[in-house]
């Protein structure tokens, strides 16, 4: 029980720490950030429910005013900004990533990459691009065009997430809660 709580909290910290890796501003004010890698890892390591809760916990602290998003941004304003779709999609992306991770029998590495591509890219982009479309008052197709700028980076992150998950499966099998 305690273990669930602390794993959720520590992975929320991990997302925050990944935000300190310098960001690149791009595509209409939505940054390229290593934090989406954190979202993927929450799913692949913690599994669906705990992964989503870790992301929610992180978002609660951001909303409460801590500058934990990349570039030291935070507060309620980020939920009114161009990233809002991505932020709303974060916990859902982690959940889907974890859900797939829990159900496939692929090796942890392959499963981690595949789940990250589907959850951490596919699902996340649906929300992120819809958000962009609403904020920019543009058709989805045009927003999607902007969103594609993130694709190369995010594919790299999904591969990394798979590799990290594979290593963890080898080094701390008991801690890979998604496969416990």
């Amino acid at each position, binding site marked *: 029980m305690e273990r669930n709580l602390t794993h959720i909290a520590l992975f929320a910290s991990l997302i925050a720490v990944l935000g300190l890796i310098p960001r690149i501003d791009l595509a209409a004010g939505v940054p390229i950030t290593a934090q989406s890698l954190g979202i993927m890892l929450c799913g692949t390591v913690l599994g669906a429910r705990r992964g989503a809760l870790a992301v929610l916990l992180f978002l609660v602290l951001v909303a409460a005013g801590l500058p934990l998003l990349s570039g030291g941004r935070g507060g309620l304003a980020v939920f009114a900004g161009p990233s809002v779709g991505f932020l709303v999609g974060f916990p859902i992306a982690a959940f889907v990533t974890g859900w797939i991770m829990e159900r496939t029998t692929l090796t942890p590495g392959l499963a981690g990459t595949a789940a990250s591509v589907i959850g951490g890219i596919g699902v996340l982009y649906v929300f992120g691009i819809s958000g962009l479309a609403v904020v920019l008052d543009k058709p989805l197709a045009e927003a999607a065009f902007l969103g594609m700028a993130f694709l190369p980076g995010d594919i790299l992150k999904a591969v990394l997430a798979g590799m990290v998950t594979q290593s963890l499966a080898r*080094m701390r099998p008991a801690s890979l809660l998604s496969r416990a």
Partner: protein
Amino acid sequence: MPDRTQPDAPDPAHQTGITLDAATVTLSGRVVLDRISLSLTEARIGILGRNGSGKTTLLRLIAGLIAPASGKVRIDGIDPFTDRKATLAALGILFQNPDHQILFPTVEEELAFGLVQQGQPQAQATATALRALADQGRAHWAKVPVSTLSQGQRHYLCLLAVLLMQPRTILLDEPLAGLDLPTRTRLARRFAALPQRLVTITHDPETLVSADRLIWLDGGRIAADGPPAQVIPAFTAEMERIGARDADADLTS
């Protein structure tokens, strides 16, 4: 049989040694080491000092892991912060906490890593690592996950990893803390047999009686510098004096 891993390591006497020239280190805006000047050429050097006096920071500075805010650091003539390649051959460091040092899941990978970084092909590095393990009667460790080793065993692995790279100087940060008495005795014996220059941090002055030179750090400055016969009595007396005082005056930051 002598306990030497590096039969062909260079003789420390031929090296120019470690020199610091008014080196100052600032961490998060705080001066942690204050214009330290030192020239270390001895084979066995000890560093003493209270918690927070700057011992680990000094070791990190010498190892080139942090840069001085001002002043100069040279190891055998090399700038350890900028010339990483040359520093790897000149100097190895054993971290205080093995958990801060170990990077890889298995013993074999951990040992081979440093060799690959020094330019050996992976296959050769792994072979060297396996040979070193076999030499120590620990061939069966090769595939063992590091996480199942005890604290003392992990500590020992870190030391092996450093020795395998054959640096001319080894920096040891409290190498015996938390180890049991037999392991301590054995490691002390192994250290004594090493041909390299050793710089050792400790809280136990007794383990340094046979050193060539002791440096006592206090609040980021050198409080004393000399042979053990001179530094140890002064250090011990001062520590006892402080220990006898009321705790409260001091633990308050």
